[in-house]
């Protein structure tokens, strides 16, 4: 490839790798997060000629989203196979259990988030943690902007509902500090 392609790739990597790694680390374990982030940039390298630098993050997040989804599917298939072969209880992958938990209240919030539907969790993370607008969320989820807005609106309402009991409990108890974060 031409040298300017190398420069372009390096520039995009240096500008956006932390954001992509953060996206992944909010959803999967630290080691998986690095793998997925690296995969995203391998895909970028292969498609760099058609990559649109006007709006890079939604594209990069969308690739990461697909890669993580494939990992969940293969993990689920593995669990299912193990269960069938060895009679182990069926296990579900909860992305909220692999992230860093710093405080009691955060733990309660992440646990409540983990109980929500996967579609709600994702739209909330994109809006609140990645701070994306509905137009960008629509690109990542592959839906219309109005559908993204609707999903976000409903998910926010449901978040308030599921957080109500947890927050009331943790607000009335002193917050404890934990160590052992993987990324912070």
């Amino acid at each position, binding site marked *: 490839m031409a040298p300017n392609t190398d420069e372009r790739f*390096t520039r995009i990597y240096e500008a956006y790798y*932390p954001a992509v790694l953060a996206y992944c680390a909010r959803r999967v374990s630290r080691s998986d997060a690095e793998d997925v982030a690296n995969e995203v940039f391998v895909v970028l*390298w292969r498609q760099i000629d058609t990559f649109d630098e006007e709006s890079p993050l939604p594209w990069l997040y969308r690739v990461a989203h697909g890669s993580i989804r494939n990992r969940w599917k293969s993990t689920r298939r593995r669990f299912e196979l193990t269960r069938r072969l060895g009679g182990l209880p069926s296990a579900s992958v909860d992305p909220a259990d692999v992230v860093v*938990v710093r405080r009691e209240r955060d733990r309660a919030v992440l646990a409540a988030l983990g109980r929500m539907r996967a579609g709600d969790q994702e739209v909330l993370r994109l809006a609140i*943690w990645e701070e994306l607008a509905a137009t960008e969320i629509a690109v990542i989820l*592959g839906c219309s902007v109005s559908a993204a807005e609707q999903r976000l609106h409903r998910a*926010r309402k449901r978040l308030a509902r599921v*957080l109500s009991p947890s927050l009331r409990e943790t607000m009335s108890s002193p917050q404890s500090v934990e160590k052992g974060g993987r*990324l912070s």
Partner: protein
Amino acid sequence: MIDIDAAVRAMRGADPVPDPESLRRFMVDGAVFLDATRERTMEIQTEFDTVGTQKTPVPMWRRAMPGLVAAAVVLLVGAAILLLARDTELDVAGIPQTSSEPTATYIGGACDYDGPSEFALNTMVTVTVINESETTQVGFSLWKFPEGVTPDEILEQGIFEFVTQGNSPSFILPPTAIGEPGTLRAFLDSPGQWGISCFDQSGGENVGSDNYVTMFTVNG
């Protein structure tokens, strides 16, 4: 219930990576990363080429299998449609029909219903369904729901929480083409809450589709 802003603030506060810039320490130099990426891309290509050259010839009967299966499916579906049509013709005789034809339109994130909110028991209802969203992964169904269940609960918990042997769907349309009307038809044979479900599989991820339900009542 806490207000939505407080919930959003709590979730923002629980962000496991509040400062993505702090992850720069996990990065390698851009040029080093580029070399590694280039190597990885070549490895993938080599793996692909190796697999491609090691392909064993597929026996003739296996190559013909997809075609045979597809033909069998087409025949079975055709037979089912003919049987349904025959049954429907027989059923319709003497059964009250709805005077106006209700419609349900999926617009992405919501199911719009335009029709009566109440029906008489033992009525044959025909609903025109249209997908006007931007995804083709949309289907429609007509169900009898347990009493007291709300559309929000169904959207939140998934439709299969509310499916029992006694209230399985009367009819399901497969994913539909955008803008192309389809028809749901059901005999409203028990009083209570019935609903039309617009199910969107495009953002379903690993837990199935989003079910946007609109309800009407069948009077006893």
